[in-house]
């Protein structure tokens, strides 16, 4: 069962880490858009 749980947990850790990186990039881009709008 340890191997099974390790595989499933690692799968979701990888997905969540990638989704987190996408969210960070979206936030950064939104800030850049706000700065452009101010100009």
């Amino acid at each position, binding site marked *: 069962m340890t191997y099974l749980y390790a*595989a499933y947990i690692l799968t979701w850790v990888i997905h969540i880490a990638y989704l987190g990186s996408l969210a960070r990039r979206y936030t950064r881009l939104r800030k850049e858009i706000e700065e452009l709008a101010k100009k």
Partner: protein
Amino acid sequence: MKRVFPILAILTAALLSYGLYQALVVAPTEKTMGDVQRIFYYHVPSAWTAGVLFFVNFVASIIYLARRNTKADALALASAEVGVVFCTIVLVTGPIWARPVWGIWWTWDLRLTLTLVLWLIYVSYLLLRRFSTSGQTPVIAAVLAIFGTLDIPLVYFSIWFFRTQHPQPVIGGGGSIDPRMLHAFFVNLIAFTCFGALVCWSRYRLEVLRREVEETQALESLLEARSSR
């Protein structure tokens, strides 16, 4: 699409949860391998989704080369990036399954090696896109992607045409499978495909938006330079 996206995301999350329940609770335990066989319900759908995304990358790269369509280029980049994520999962879950079943984490078996080569091709594609400053980068990347796709049929057919340590296909390969196992497998296959498509769509939107912002910034600095003269 903006309004439909949250609904699709909720549906996909529900499907993934149902798939997890099917894989861990409903599907029976395999007699020879035991519970570790359940890794199959994540490993194979991840491999399938990676293959589909790399194929999207292939088609988008051809469209870009033929028409110089920047949206096709953005889609190629998005699908390659998300495809690498799914391919990483294949390369992580495979050895975790192999350790208790084969007694080793890794062997230089044809399918395993070709999958690693596939992953390396698309990682180099992403590195090229990230660090190359040449104006020809999208063209070079598209050519690399087209050649990279040639590895996909090699990965798939390697277990059919060569003697490898990797298990032969149970579905479509003449083997029998419990209907509950089949159900769990197909639910996860659909769930992972939908999840991959949604993440790819999200990454595509981000890329299109990023390019628009960069163009506006370039225009802005050009106007500033002109007005300061």
